[in-house]
C-alpha cells in the first residue's frame, strides 16, 4: 500500500556526480514499485545545508533523506570513524563485501540507534593524493608537504604521521590555495579532482588509495517509522538498485577522470606493492591512537573480517 510522498534528498555534490545517475535509477525503480507515488526530490550542491546539518535535520524528522560521506558524521556516531582509517580496504571489491555484509548491517544498527536509517552504502571512491612538488612513490616523499585534509582528526593524524604538514581547510578554498601554492597537495577521489579542476594546478598524482569513505543513503528514522511496510521495503530495495548503478558509473568515471588528468600532463604514479605494505604497517599507530574513540570491538571486527576475505 503506497501513499503520495515527496522525499527530499539533499546532496553535497552536484547533479552531474554519479550520485545523480543513482538517484535517477532509484526513482525509476520506485516509480515501478509504487505506481509513481513515491517521488524523490533531489537538492544539489548543499542547497539544503551542509551534510552534517542535513543529517541533523533527518534525526529531528525535519527532512527525509541525505546522501553523505561517512566522515562528517563521526561526531554523531564515533564508530563511523572506522572508515576514515588509512589503507583499510585494498580494493573496491573488499569494500563492497564488508559494507553489504554483516559489518555493514552492524553499522546500520548503530546508525538506527542515532535516529538514522541507512538504506544502502553508495560509493564515493578511493581517495588519491595530488601535489605540485614532486612525485610521491614512497613514505619519505610525504615529508614536509603541505597537504589539505578534511576537518577530521583521523585524516589529520594519518598525514601528520606520514610526515606531511596536514592543514585542515574548507573544500571551497582548496582550488585557490593550490593555485597560489599556499598548500602543495590535496587528497580526493579522481572524480572530484576532475570535476573540481584541481588537476589544472597540480603536477603529480599518486594512486595512494589511502581511504575509502563510503557514501551513506540516510533516511530520517522518525519519518521512516510513519511509512507503511511496503513503502519501507520499496525504499530499501530501490536504494540498492540505485547503489549498483551508481557504483558502476563511478567506476567508469574514475577511469575517464584519470585519463583526463593524464591528458592534462600530470605525472601519474602508483605505490609499489612493498611500499603500500610498508606505509600500511607504519600507519598502524593511527589505528592504535583512535581505537578507543571508534570502539575497539569495531576496529577488531573489521580487521578480522578483512583477514577472512583476504585468505
Amino acid at each position: 500500500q503506497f501513499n503520495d510522498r515527496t522525499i527530499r534528498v539533499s546532496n553535497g555534490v552536484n547533479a552531474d556526480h554519479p550520485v545523480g545517475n543513482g538517484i535517477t535509477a532509484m526513482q525509476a525503480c520506485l516509480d515501478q514499485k509504487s505506481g509513481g507515488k513515491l517521488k524523490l526530490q533531489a537538492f544539489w550542491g548543499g542547497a539544503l545545508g551542509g551534510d552534517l546539518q542535513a543529517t541533523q535535520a533527518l534525526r529531528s524528522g525535519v527532512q527525509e533523506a541525505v546522501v553523505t560521506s561517512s566522515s562528517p558524521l563521526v561526531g554523531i556516531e564515533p564508530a563511523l570513524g572506522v572508515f576514515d582509517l588509512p589503507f583499510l580496504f585494498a580494493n573496491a571489491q573488499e569494500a563492497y563485501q564488508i559494507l553489504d555484509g554483516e559489518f555493514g548491517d552492524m553499522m546500520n544498527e548503530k546508525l538506527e540507534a542515532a535516529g538514522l536509517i541507512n538504506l544502502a552504502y553508495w560509493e564515493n571512491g578511493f581517495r588519491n593524493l595530488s601535489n605540485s612538488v614532486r612525485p610521491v612513490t614512497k613514505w619519505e616523499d610525504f615529508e614536509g608537504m603541505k597537504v589539505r585534509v578534511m576537518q577530521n582528526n583521523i585524516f589529520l593524524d594519518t598525514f601528520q604521521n606520514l610526515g606531511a604538514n596536514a592543514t585542515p581547510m574548507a573544500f571551497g578554498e582548496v582550488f585557490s590555495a593550490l593555485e597560489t601554492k599556499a598548500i602543495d597537495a590535496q587528497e580526493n577521489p579522481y572524480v572530484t579532482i576532475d570535476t573540481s579542476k584541481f588537476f589544472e594546478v597540480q603536477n603529480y598524482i599518486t594512486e595512494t588509495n589511502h581511504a575509502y569513505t563510503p557514501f551513506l543513503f540516510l533516511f530520517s528514522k522518525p519519518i521512516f517509522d510513519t511509512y507503511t511496510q511496503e513503502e519501507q521495503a520499496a525504499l530499501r530495495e530501490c536504494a540498492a538498485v540505485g547503489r549498483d548503478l551508481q557504483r558502476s558509473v563511478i567506476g567508469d568515471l574514475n577511469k575517464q577522470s584519470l585519463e583526463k588528468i593524464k591528458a592534462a600532463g600530470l605525472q601519474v604514479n602508483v605505490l609499489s606493492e612493498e611500499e603500500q605494505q610498508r606505509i600500511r604497517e607504519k600507519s598502524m599507530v593511527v589505528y592504535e591512537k583512535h581505537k578507543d574513540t571508534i570502539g575497539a570491538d569495531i576496529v577488531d571486527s573489521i580487521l578480522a573480517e578483512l583477514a577472512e576475505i583476504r585468505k
Partner: protein
Amino acid sequence: MTRLVDLFYRFLETLLILLLSGMAIMVFVNVVLRYAFNSGLTVSDEMARYFFVWLTFIGAVVGFREYGHMGVETLVARFGRKGRQICMFLTNLVILGVSLLFFWGTWKQLPINVSMSAPVTGLSMGWVYGIGFFTGAGCSLIALERLFRLATGRVTEHEIAAFAGERHGVDQHAERST
C-alpha cells in the same frame, strides 16, 4: 529592579567584549603559529567558531533591547501616536511568537545536539545549540514586557520614537550598512 536589569545587561556587554577578544586572540595566535612555526591548534579554530555563535545570539538580545535590529520604518514613521502604538503592539506580538518557537525548537532538538560532539574538542553540541534557550527566552521576555506596558499605557514617548526609527545615531546606522 531596574538597576538589577541594567547590571545584568552590563554583564552581558562584558561577556560580548570577552567573546570577541577571545575569538580574535585565538584566530590570531593560530595565524602566527601556522606561518611562523608551521603548526596550528585545530582546537582554537573550533572554539573561535563557538564563541562566534554565543556572541551572535547574546548580542541579538542586547540589540533587541536597544532597538538596534534593522527594520524598515518608512510606513510606521508616517503614523500618528495611536497608529505607531498599534504597530508596536503587533510587532512585539510577532517577535514574541517567533522567539517562543525558537525556544521550543531548541528544546525539541536538544537530544540530537547533546548526542553529537564537536570534531576536535569533543564538546557536546548541546552547549553550542543551547544558546537558543537564552535568545528565545530573552527576546520573549523583552517583547512580553513591552506588550504589557503598551496594553497598560506605560510605554514612553522615547520608545515609540525609537520604534519608528527616529532616534538612531551614527553607530546604529553603521550597524545597518555593513
